[in-house]
């Protein structure tokens, strides 16, 4: 088991992690506000507990962090003014840096996204979806076909992409 101490995590996102560790009163407002918490293996409050108690490797292996859609309802409600959404973002980043969760879908999506941005400076959502779907489950594309056709008809969907002209500026 990879042992990680709090200091390493603090180095990743000092302010928000420290605030969570120091100020959380374990009231559960975040968990009960989260639209996706019912699908999580740990509630957001419990993730704070894990981190606070130094069980960071356990926190990094949860589904919870990848189910956070950063809608920040928790953040605006938290009575200790902890930005839980941001807390989850830091955990996600830290997880990827430490080699956990590489086989999960969400990190794959993010990597595909970043590849696109790095290559073109912008993204095309339809292209991103296709590329991502091909990576994980090509059959899914078939399922999406009827809607895609409708959207194409409505002129909503387009596969063109305008790339950034001065790409070197983006890369630098």
């Amino acid at each position, binding site marked *: 088991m990879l042992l990680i101490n709090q200091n390493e995590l603090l180095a990743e996102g000092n302010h928000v992690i420290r605030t969570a560790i120091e100020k959380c*009163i*374990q*009231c*559960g*407002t975040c*968990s*009960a*506000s*989260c639209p996706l*918490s*019912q699908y999580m293996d*740990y*509630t957001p*409050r*419990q993730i704070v507990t894990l981190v606070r108690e130094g069980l960071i490797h356990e926190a990094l292996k949860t589904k919870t962090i990848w189910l956070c859609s950063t809608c920040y309802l928790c953040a605006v*409600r938290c*009575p*200790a*003014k902890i930005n839980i959404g941001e807390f989850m973002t830091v955990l996600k980043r830290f997880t990827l840096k430490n080699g956990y969760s590489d086989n999960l879908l969400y990190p794959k999506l993010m990597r595909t996204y970043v590849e696109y941005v790095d290559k073109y400076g912008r993204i095309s959502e339809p292209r991103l979806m296709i590329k991502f779907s091909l990576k994980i489950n090509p059959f899914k594309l078939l399922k999406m076909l009827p809607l895609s056709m409708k959207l194409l008809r409505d002129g909503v969907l387009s596969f063109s992409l305008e790339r950034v002209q001065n790409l070197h500026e983006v890369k630098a």
Partner: protein
Amino acid sequence: MDRKVGVYICHCGLNIASTVDVNKLTEFAQSLEGVVIARNYPYMCSDPGQELIRKDIKEYGLTNVVVAACSPTMHGSTFMKVCEEAGLNPYMFHMVNIREHVSWVTDNVEKATEKAKLLLAAAVNRVKLHEPLNRIHVPIIQSVLVVGGGITGIETSLKLANSGKKVYLVEREPSIGGRMAQLEKTFPTLDCASCILTPKMVDVASHPNITILAYSEIKEVSGYIGNYKVKIVKKPRYVDENKCIGCGLCATKCPSKVLDEFNMGLSYRKAIYIPFPQAVPRKYTIDREHCLYFTKGICRVCEKFCPTKAINFEQKPEEITLDVGAVILATGYDVFDPSVIKRYGYGRYKNVYTGLEVERLTSASGPTNGRIILRDGRTPSTIVIIHCVGSRDENYHTYCSRVCCMYAMKLAHLIKERVPNSTIYELYIDIRAHGKGYEEFYRRVQEEGVIFIRGKAAEVTESEDGKLIVTFEDTLLGRVQQIEADMVILATALEPRKDAKELARIFNIPLDKNGFFLEKHPKLAPFSTVNRGVFVAGACQGPKDIPDSVAQGAAAAAEALSLLSKGMVEAEPVIAEVNKSLCSGCRICISVCPYGAALFDKETKTAIVQEVLCQGCGTCVASCPSGARTLKQRGFMDNQILAEIEAILPKRTITMTTAIAEA
């Protein structure tokens, strides 16, 4: 005159000694010019510590004393008294703060010791220039102003009045009684609130030493400890208090209905009213904003029916001036308005209540005669009480409001008593049952079947059939849960009165960071304020339950009594002084003095300082165009301050001329 200085260094246990090398500091002190004796001791403020100083003063014939210890606010007066007891003028003493200014702000022993040395040298330099000063004595007026007629103000007034002092009890509302009058029962003993409050209200009304000034507000205060002049505005009731017999015929005939604030808007009263049946004084009041005569120029029905002809639409605000020796503020609290936490739906969903609203529902004299009936007429069967609404929340109030856990449990008990089949949930973060009998009450309520769940409600929504859905995480299960409830009660926080700031300005006292009146010291002077003749008691100083409020009310009365019974007040001599032979009479000092202490003397055509009014702030001294020899600040003379600076900055020679030139 040859100065013989004694230096006393306090360890303050380990507070100072762990960071400042007290032995080195003592050695250093001993080497300073004029110092005849330097000592250190674990607790200089203790009896043996004080005795050390007293003995030395006599033995060595000390002319000056320097104590290096904590803040002078803490123990300055202690050591001044020690000097006085040993026959030394207390103003020949100076104190250095090597705790808050040195040991508490660093872990570096070497640097801390260095800084302590500099501060000590400065103090020794300065103290040698001290001159004896004599305190000013002024007689104290033997009456007290109590502001606020709630349980705290009532208790305070009775204690003072029973000790033979004259009390003026000022209350803003038409009746005294305050918040407690709105309560049904009190935790944890479940005494009927009215049964224990009403007799005290009657005692106040009938006490020969108490004058109640109800429906009145403080307008202005001037003067100083022992001699305050207070201007009070008595608002017009439009009813002659001397004629009104409280029969209530006017209210029965009055056609104008108004939401009843005493019942938290859950019922109606008339435009002419008494707030509640046991009101003291039992005198009716016309609510000008809702009276048909005042709003539309019609009606005057009350006037027609009043048997004693007490109605007087021409009544004007009346200004009353009182002379008092001390003031006790007992203005209580406001209830946090939960409608700002929109997700709890207060104001949007009719069955979401505040604690105080439910308190009125449970009251036998309340809008439902004590029956628990919702706004839609139903009796609730599932009730959720949400704790910490507006408290322990950095978006609203960070403090714990102290009484909410207990009153939430009391409400649960009362509802259970009235609706035995109901299911009641308490959603709490932590239960704070800290008082005598409180934990036992918590157990009792749990035994009565109230269900306690650890988790803060995240939101209240409405289901299709109009039930309230409360969503929360049961933090002990680690699971998000929902309860379908008929009634939601918000245990709202206590907060400072909306006009606390204004009152604090009038009485010249500070507020704490939450907006409550700031006590002088939380432990050593919890009823005093920095304004020496003004005391605070009850929830205006911070959230408090009834036992604590009553205790503090009595304690504040004792503080005021001990002041009054001295007969004379000692005023600090560390104040401004005019050298009349140099004063040109330009009057600038008079315009800048915030206390009205500087006056112009027509005879001599110079400024004079009224000693008892001067607070020694130094504003006038700084403003005097002809310099500090004309207008002097005793205890802070230029030579004294420059002597301190010279010791701290030894490498540069600062003379008065260079300092002034540079300034």
